């Protein structure tokens, strides 16, 4: 359970929260004492005892797969935090199961509900900057600032680490803007502080039609007050730069006409790109994605933004990045090898030779 998820969904006028599950008894006792919520410590017991329309899952990633499957098998619609699963195969299976049962699914890639990033998508769909050649996707922020960490986020085996827990956001924006890559290369999963997982992610991604992307992510950077996700897209007719607050667009003279935009510089701010939500807690996008999920269950008419199938594409990229990082450099400088210090990383070069 995530407290802020619970707060937002409970405030939704069309939703009734019938049960909360968490493994921490203390939190549950406080909640039940002061808010009257019905609580469970066991997920399956809850599923067996309460009649529901939907579940919202915000747990360490390794629990997502079994919890989502149990819910789908009971015929429940599912909102699950990102990333969906630790293997893309499981994500695809769950997407297929949900489709077969006609259930609504959604994953918490909230950037797709940020006004500025939606505007970028609209501009790309309109062909505003001509043919896209390159995308730079970045995210920086202060999450891990010392070596010791005791929560699941410091364990790669539980889905912790900068790749799955942080880089997943800019990677998902890449999936949204450019689709599925045909391959990745030069991936670095580096450590700044963490012992059991990575704090930095860098990579090059290759897409069809000669579109390339670079990913640059670091969650051990307190020079950023909070998480900052940025997208820079270069095209033959202009360039787009966006973060959560604003979209800056430069359009060449050769760019097509786009409603509301002129040649040269254009800036759109969050104040004009953001619609009010029914309830605000730390950002409109968090409420907006839950509202979208609820509305899809009610009417089934909205688009399937962030469906399991879409999240499975992003999960596959995360997998590719992990595999690629283990391979090391693709092109070696033989002279540099000869001049290497006496204690090189053993085995790496010999294995590739």
């Amino acid at each position: 359970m995530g407290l802020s998820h619970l707060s937002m969904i409970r405030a939704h006028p069309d939703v009734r929260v019938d049960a909360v599950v968490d493994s921490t008894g203390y939190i549950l006792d406080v909640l039940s004492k002061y808010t009257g919520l019905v609580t469970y410590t066991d997920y399956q017991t809850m599923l067996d005892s309460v009649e529901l329309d939907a579940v919202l899952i915000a747990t360490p990633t390794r629990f997502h797969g079994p919890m989502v499957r149990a819910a789908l098998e009971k015929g429940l619609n599912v909102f699950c935090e990102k990333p969906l699963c630790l293997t893309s195969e499981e994500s695809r299976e769950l997407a297929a199961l949900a489709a077969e049962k006609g259930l609504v699914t959604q994953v918490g890639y909230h950037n797709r509900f940020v006004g500025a990033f939606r505007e970028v998508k609209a501009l790309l769909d309109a062909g505003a900057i001509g043919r896209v050649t390159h995308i730079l996707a970045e995210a920086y922020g202060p999450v891990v600032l010392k070596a010791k960490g005791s929560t699941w986020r410091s364990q790669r085996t539980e889905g912790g680490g900068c790749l799955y827990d942080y880089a997943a956001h800019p990677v998902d924006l890449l999936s949204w803007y450019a689709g599925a890559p045909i391959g990745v290369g030069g991936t670095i999963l580096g450590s700044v502080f963490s012992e059991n997982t990575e704090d930095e992610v860098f990579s090059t991604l290759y897409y069809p039609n000669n579109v390339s992307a670079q990913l640059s992510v670091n969650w051990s950077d307190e020079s950023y007050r909070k998480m900052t996700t940025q997208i820079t897209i270069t095209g033959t007719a202009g360039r787009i730069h966006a973060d959560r607050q604003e979209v800056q667009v430069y359009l060449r003279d050769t760019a097509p006409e786009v409603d509301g935009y002129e040649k040269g510089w254009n800036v759109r701010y969050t104040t004009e790109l953001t619609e009010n939500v029914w309830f605000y807690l730390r950002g409109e996008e968090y409420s907006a994605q839950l509202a979208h999920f609820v509305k899809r269950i009610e009417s089934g008419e909205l688009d399937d933004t962030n469906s399991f199938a879409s999240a499975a594409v992003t999960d596959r990229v995360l997998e590719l990045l992990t595999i690629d990082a283990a391979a090391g450099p693709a092109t070696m400088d033989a002279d540099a090898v000869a001049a290497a210090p006496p204690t090189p990383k053993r085995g790496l070069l010999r294995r590739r030779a």
Partner: protein
Amino acid sequence: MDRLLFGDNQFFGVNHMSEEKARAQAMRFQDLDAVMEVLDTAYDEGITTFMCTTHERIAEVADRVRHNPERYADFTFFPGMPYAHKYADAVTENGMLGAVRKFLPEEGIMNAMLRGGASLARKDVEGLITLLIDAEMAMFRGLKTPVIWLQNVVVDLLLGLGFTDAFSIFAKHVKKRYNAEPGFITMNLPMLLDALDRAGIENPIVCSNINKIGFRMSGGIEGYHEVLETRKFRAVAMSVFASGAIPAREAIEWISEQPNIESIVFGASSRANIRSTKQLVDEFGA
């Protein structure tokens, strides 16, 4: 409360419009003298109330004010708590109990430990909440704090959870221990007023975004119009300029026409902006 209150977002790299601008401000205000210079400017323009977070750097501001009682005879703090990042980080690093220990007030460690520890054990949040308030207030000892705010991240989290008892615990403690009025900052004004009613808090001081374009006014501007017309509460308007999206004159003219707004809180970094805001407010009798 004064008509104009001075806010502190600009000092901590908070800017809702531009991350570039936020970074430039963070660089400029890394030096406490730069912060004091702006506060002095506002003070000398007659804006003597500083509505601030409990960021550790505010403790340095409080020290300066405390040590210059003549210079700052009318300087008034409206502290807003908790400074949420501080707690989130501490809980991540030290766990719940460790975090509580870290923020013990100086009043007597044994006493506070007992209050905090026993509260945790009994699942009684009252002791815990009052303990944390005291820890946050330690930096303002001996200074004027006639209004004490609960920050919007906490207010709105509790609001969504339906944890209304926490509001009355906060209000009671702030009145009793600090002889101050409790204030509540929210991004969900209409919804919060109902919850404060249920918590039995009469004529509450509530601060929320109120601006001409409806920016970050949850549920829509109409709901805000309605509560300003019909509900009994002391409204403080923030984000009046919607982060710069509304020209200053237009923003202040509009806010001056809204009923029942007691105060306006704004942030600025230059003498020119501080002075022009003050002049506009005087001009429109806002």
